[in-house]
């Protein structure tokens, strides 16, 4: 594995997404501010805003770094560089995660900090963590489909599926007895149900990314 080349490609992807990253951080900070100081209405608006910004950055980076590269025919330029398919795939997966995850960590960290300092919403901690990891699953699904299918239509379908799944998972998780019981309470809690759900999501992420490497390494036509 040529790590220097992979680093170079990751840096390139980060460079072209730097404005989106900066705007996402600013938007995320504003949204958390609205949640913290906006009262009851601000809380709802802030949550909607923060989820929208996270989902938008996820979609923008995946589409911009993978699908657009093919659509704008810059993939031929990238593949003319001294890299193999596996190095290309590694750079795309790591690059997208390195762009998205720091922002995700900052927003999720900020949200958890707000929950910890606000006793009325202490009960939301486990639900928030589960849903935050679910957003990561959606991002990885979109990334995997974009890389494997190399198709804008399929990537959009994966994005829609991820967003629908996010709502569905949110609804289902909120109705699982192990979560529902403490969710509206004023005490911080974490239980085995929450651990199982997060572990399942992490396993799904590993499966998606591992599957992507597996399929990419067996592709015969790359451009």
């Amino acid at each position: 594995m040529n790590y220097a080349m992979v680093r170079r490609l990751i840096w390139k992807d980060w460079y072209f997404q730097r404005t989106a990253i900066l705007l996402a951080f600013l938007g995320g900070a504003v949204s958390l501010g609205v949640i913290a100081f906006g009262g009851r209405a601000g809380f709802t608006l802030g949550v909607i805003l923060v989820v929208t910004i996270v989902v938008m950055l996820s979609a923008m980076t995946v589409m911009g770094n993978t699908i657009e590269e093919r659509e704008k025919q810059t993939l031929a330029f990238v593949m003319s560089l001294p890299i193999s398919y596996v190095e290309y795939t590694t750079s795309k997966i790591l690059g997208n995660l390195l762009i998205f995850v720091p922002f995700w960590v900052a927003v999720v960290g900020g949200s958890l900090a707000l929950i910890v300092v606000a006793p009325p919403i202490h009960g939301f901690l486990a639900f928030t963590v589960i849903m935050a990891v679910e957003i990561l699953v959606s991002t990885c699904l979109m990334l995997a489909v974009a890389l494997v299918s190399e198709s804008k239509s399929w990537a959009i379908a994966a994005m829609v599926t991820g967003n629908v799944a996010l709502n569905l998972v949110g609804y289902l998780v909120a109705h699982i007895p192990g979560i529902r019981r403490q969710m509206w309470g004023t005490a911080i809690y974490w239980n085995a149900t929450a651990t199982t759900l997060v572990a399942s999501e992490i396993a799904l992420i590993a499966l998606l990314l591992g599957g992507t490497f597996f399929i990419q390494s067996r592709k015969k036509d790359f451009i």
Partner: protein
Amino acid sequence: MNELAVQFDGVSKGYTHFSLENIHLELPTGSIMGFIGANGAGKSTTIRILMGLVHQDEGSVRVLGHTMPAEQAQAKLEIGFVSEDMRLYGPATLKWHMEFMRPIYPRWDQKYAEELARRFDLKPEQKIKGLSHGQRVKAALLLALARRPRLLVLDEPTTGLDPVARVEVLGELMAALADEERTILFSSHNTLDVEQISDQITFIDRGRIIDSDNKEAFLDRWRRLRLVLPPDVQVPRLPGVVEVGGSGRLPVLTTDRFEPAMVSVCNELGAAVQAVDTMTLEEIFVANVHSRRERLTA
């Protein structure tokens, strides 16, 4: 000069509506091969296999001593590749592209890159999206040449260029040929461009290589013989005749194995040779393709 920079041995690749069949291709180090074919003939597929971007179904490919596609990363370190469908990053400048590529290629020549930018009248600070098509091709060529590649692969680089830009690009390619160790594969459907810079010519049609030789040999062995036939004299049977045109009494024979002795043979058989015409590469290519297609449908 004896080493092979590129070697295809029995390479095949199948798609639903097109297949590349049994490609044998040898490109000696230091040579310049013009790879000519109509649109959809298989030039780009062949080049993509050469670059390791498409895996062949059968056969072996070696490029600069590396087995493809397995060792494509090592091979591409020494290849400069420009293709008609390759684009640079629109929001970035040419300077950004140079800075991006500089640490990747150990033989990157920054002075040469800057000199090429001047010669091509490119402004390094200008964004790629603000360049004309001709300027974009020149920018891609600059990035390919400044890495000082041992093998330059150009897939239809002059397509869509205006005459001035085409002459400039071809001129720079000619200058790049001063390095005798550099090998160039130049694909095009424009025979005039290929004729100017190539010393080897390969024709490809419908996924098969139909002829390959050095340029001078092509131009020497292909001729059109304009005959005048007296009544009762048949068209003489000559070796290598691929096409018989003209009208009944004034046939025109196209041969790919011309020998001066053919003229006296014709005269002895009673057919007067009115003229022996040399052929351009384009005429040779078209005659070659037509004769092969006729043989296949016969």
